[in-house]
């Protein structure tokens, strides 16, 4: 078996991992700041991709580059709306309430997309291009974009989180909400910023995924569970962990396919997730706040 076969598998794993990492970063950000798992994050992914479809179609008819900024803005707005309408009124409720609210919201948003666009699979209608071979490994433009954009996003989030006042206040919030508030940090602003960043990251990931593959109302929920596994592996609330977790899951499931039946591809991610949960059950139960 020639080496390019393994290189291509490795590349497939990295591509899948990049997308998972983008989803996981947004998920982990909300967890870090608000201390709950936003199960409606998958719907931000899906709506991001569908907002782009909306703007590229009638009556807007924008080109792809022109449609991306407003699509990201709309998804950011959706993130804010989610917080304002659903999560803010129950900010101090227990985790189970938040979890169930998030799940309900997920179903609502998914069905709304199905109502407007139907359950069928769609594409942006762009011309399919054969990949360009690099040393025997094929890479298409959307795939190239996935790698570049993920690197840029990670760098951007890093700068924002560790080099800006806003990032500092978000980290303070993540450590202790009450203490942050008493210290005079504008917690409201920090929470809203976290929602916008989380939603925009989801939209970027969703659009990249849709460009590379297709759009369907279920594209979010299918990938969310992988992103969730990635955040668990990396340690919830940890941005670097989310990136590493995403790449690890992407690589593990793609390399695994070479040795076991691809029918068990999803099982690989879930086995990893279950093992992590067994080792660190407090992540869901919330007995520890680290």
């Amino acid at each position: 078996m020639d080496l390019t076969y393994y290189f291509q598998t490795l590349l497939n794993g990295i591509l899948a991992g990049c997308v998972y990492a983008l989803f996981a970063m947004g998920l982990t950000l909300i967890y870090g700041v608000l201390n709950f798992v936003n199960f409606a994050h998958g719907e931000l992914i899906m709506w991001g991709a569908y907002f782009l479809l909306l703007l590229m179609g009638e009556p807007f008819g924008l080109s792809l580059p022109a449609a991306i900024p407003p699509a990201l803005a709309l998804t950011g707005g959706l993130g804010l709306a989610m917080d304002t309408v659903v999560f803010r009124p129950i900010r101090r409720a227990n985790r189970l309430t938040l979890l169930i609210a998030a799940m309900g919201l997920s179903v609502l948003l998914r069905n709304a997309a199905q109502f407007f666009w139907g359950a069928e699979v769609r594409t942006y209608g762009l011309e399919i291009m054969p990949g360009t071979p690099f040393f025997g490994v094929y890479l298409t433009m959307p795939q190239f974009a996935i790698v570049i954009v993920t690197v840029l996003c990670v760098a951007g989030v890093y700068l924002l989180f560790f080099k800006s006042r806003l990032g500092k206040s978000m980290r303070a919030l993540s450590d202790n909400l009450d203490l942050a508030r008493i210290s005079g940090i504008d917690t409201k602003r920090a929470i809203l910023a976290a929602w916008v960043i989380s939603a925009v990251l989801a939209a970027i990931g969703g659009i990249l995924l849709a460009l590379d593959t297709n759009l369907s109302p279920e594209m979010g929920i299918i990938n969310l569970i992988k992103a969730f596994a990635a955040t668990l592996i990396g340690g919830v609330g940890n941005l670097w962990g989310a990136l590493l977790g995403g790449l690890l899951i992407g690589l593990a499931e793609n390399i695994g396919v070479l040795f076991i039946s691809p029918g068990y591809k999803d099982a690989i991610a879930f086995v990893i997730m279950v093992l992590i949960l067994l080792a660190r059950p407090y992540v869901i139960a919330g007995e520890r706040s680290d």
Partner: protein
Amino acid sequence: MRKIALGFAVAAALLFGFTPALHAQDTYKIGAAFALSGSIAVYGEGFKKCIDLAVEEINARGGVKGKKIEIVYEDNKSNAKDCVTAVRKLITVDKVPVIFGPAGSSNFMATAPVAQESKVVLLSAQGAAVGLTKAGDYIFRVFPSDALQGPHLAKLAMNRGFKKVPVMYINNDWGLGLKNAFVDAYKKMGGTVTDIIAYDEKKTDYRTELLRAGKGNPPAIVNLTYINEGAVQFKQAFEMGIKTQWLCGSAARAPKMVELAGKAAEGVMGTYPSVPQNTKTFQAFKEAYKKKYGDDKIPIFGDYNYDMVYVTARAIERGGYSAEGIRKALPAAAKGYRGVTGDKTFDEERSPKFAEYAIWTVKDGKIVDYKLPEKAQEKKKPAKK
């Protein structure tokens, strides 16, 4: 307490007591749990037209044993839950001994155990899944099972000179059934299956599965896929530079697949059950349809629905108007009967024993029929006619 007991008694009397009086009826009622509203209502409407046509013809010739046939339509709202409700209603309220079941293999399979338990005959005119009739001996279908499609796909592969292929299939009842049927037949014909790759529905990334299937650049890959999954796979294979002849089943044969996959779908090929339209019976059916409805656009599967009525009427004629009688008479009634869609003889799994298959391919963005070269065409015909 006494009041409650009385209430129960009255309810019981209403439910069971009065209905036997209605048994002295002057028509033979057949139930039909059809999609008359909901997502696939457009199909249900077409089935109904063809069923009504057959019933009209039979009644015009004096009906069955001097009695007219009457179809009791019940809307199944295109979803599995209401399909079950519709079938239950037909069984308990209308008390029909035979029901034409809902379209869609999953919807039909949801209602099959209900009919089987109630000992009522249930027929399908559209279901292709291999295990469709497995609920029991009261479940029949006049549409060919994919178990028959497997050998035809194997013949297509052999005729095109593909003696070694990897097989990919969608991991559900339909995919698994067709995969097994194909692999068995292909091996018997001397073919070698190099790899078997199952994959899940509704995924967006099939690259590594495709990479594994494309290992060693096989000249052909068998892929038993659906519309959406197929579109994603052909697209990703195209981007990955996998150049191969795709061989598929009937489920990917849809304009939607070509629309989604674009030029990556070009040249994809597969088998599908076809009804030869040049036969006398088909032409007569087409004429009658045109006379009644004013156009000759036969609805999809309408021909199978038309045959289902005739087969059922023949069974009532032989076995009498009871579920048990119809069940026992159906195999004999259908044996050798040549309907619009061909020979309707049942096999031991209560599915059509014979079916004709044609080959589809994507050419210039359209799905067209593909003709094998002359000599190969000869071999393609089913042995027994």
